[in-house]
């Protein structure tokens, strides 16, 4: 899932304070699971904005709504006319949702209510951890299912640097050393010798460094076209 965190309220207020009709627009998928931008969070944020507007003596109409997914048009297309009655949309969807809505909404601004952070998992309620960097060139079969790109602070490909300390990364005692985990996992799998081979230089062009990426499935595209 995509993990995000709500922006500080003051930052949000600075973005929207000059607008009079505000829609706080949540997404009930990934960002709802991480309690950052689902319908519930959008509703709470809308209340906070209303109170702030009253405090500041500003006449502001603040509505809230949420849909299942901001990343596919069919979910928000039915309510697009309603959305367009506002001066600004404060989206609490991930950055994908903000971009996608901005492309379709015409001349109404769409602002981000959350900072979109990473692809992550939820090992325990309230804890979200980054496990994949979406680099477009997966090598998890070589590293015991633990990603050195996402989980080593230096994205090293050939083992831990000298900064690993009792299984922790040099950047923080709160961060596991990804390569320590990989070595331990490969030992368990009886496949440590796989890590004796030198891994070649990465092709980073499949990651975001190669420019914006797209995937086209010709067979599906054709069927839809018909």
């Amino acid at each position, binding site marked *: 899932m995509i993990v995000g965190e709500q922006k500080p309220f003051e930052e949000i207020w600075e973005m929207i304070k000059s607008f009079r009709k505000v829609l706080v627009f949540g997404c009930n998928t990934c960002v709802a699971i991480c309690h950052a931008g689902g319908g519930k969070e959008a509703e709470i944020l809308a209340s906070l904005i209303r109170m702030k507007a009253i405090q500041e003596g500003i006449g502001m109409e603040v509505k809230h709504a949420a849909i299942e997914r901001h990343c596919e048009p069919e979910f928000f297309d039915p309510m697009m006319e309603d959305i367009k009655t506002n001066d600004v949309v404060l989206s609490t969807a991930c950055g994908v949702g903000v971009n996608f809505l901005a492309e379709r909404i015409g001349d109404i601004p769409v602002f981000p209510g959350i900072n979109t952070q990473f692809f992550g998992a939820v090992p325990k309620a309230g804890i979200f951890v980054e496990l994949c960097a979406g680099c477009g060139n997966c090598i998890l079969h070589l590293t015991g299912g633990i990603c050195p790109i996402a989980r080593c*602070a*230096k*994205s*090293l*490909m*050939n*083992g*831990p*640097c*000298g*900064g*690993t*300390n*009792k*299984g922790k990364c*040099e*950047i*923080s005692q709160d961060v596991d*050393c990804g390569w*320590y985990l990989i*070595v*331990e996992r490969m*030992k368990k799998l009886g496949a*440590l010798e796989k*890590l*004796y081979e*030198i*891994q*070649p*230089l*990465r092709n*980073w062009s499949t990651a975001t460094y190669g420019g914006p990426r797209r995937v086209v499935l010709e067979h599906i595209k054709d069927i839809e076209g018909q």
Partner: protein
Amino acid sequence: MKSGSNLEKVLESGHFAVTAEVGPPKGASAKVVQRKGELLKTYCDAMNVTDNQTAIVRMSSCSGCILLREIGIDPVMQIVVRDRNRIAIQSDILGAVALGIRNILCLSGDHQRFGNHPTTKGVYDIDSIQLVQTLKKMRDEKKFICGEDISGEVPLYIGAVETPFADPIEYRVKRLAKKVKAGADFIQTQAVFDVAKFIKWMEIVRDEGLDKQVHILAGVIPIKSVGMARYMKDNVSGISVPDEIVTRMEEAKVAKDEGVKIALEIIEQLKEMNSIHGIHIMAVAWEDIVPVIVERAGLLPRPVL
């Protein structure tokens, strides 16, 4: 000869090498580098110039190396993969060689979060082992990473580092083997304080036959104070400082003298190890102690080859 550098000559002719480290200034003064160079010139075979160590911006390693070379010192240019992508690295290598730099030491580099620009973007396009491979390819095949030809020779003596006591211990020697396989000519280790533990590590290195394929220089850090001993023991990953050393520093009348004494005892034991071909002295902000240590360790005069 692969590069003809003084360090290569010293190591290949079987001498016990001595190298030292120069931290470049947080400024543009050539004099700072020259002064350190003049101070240590006759006491070591080559001098490393660090590359924005601990991710703190300083004068570039390449420039420091050129300043040292101008006063007759064989420099070792450090390159960390934190700040440059493969285009910049290969370009810098060509420039460094053109300016007479022959020894290159390949490192990952301390993470940018440590330094004075913690909000920067780290590069990490290639890792330190791939950097060693890249230099070997440039030198031996006269080719860039992409396979295109380089015009002319790229004489290099390739170094890498290893931290013997970092986790996971059982994988460390294998990782060293990767560096050797990638093309390292010499290895500098993290500072050694626990010689007994280091000897055990070197036994594994010997079992793998690595000491016959690469020149290993053991790292030596003279301890200036008991605070420094404690700090390294508790905070520096991959450094193992035995309690005995901390106690000796605590009980010493003059801490600096005890620190020198400890360094000399460690060097004495390292000299007796056949598989260790030299030492690399990292006297961080205490460069003027290096001549004293080298002299008292009986490592003078340095060979003229």
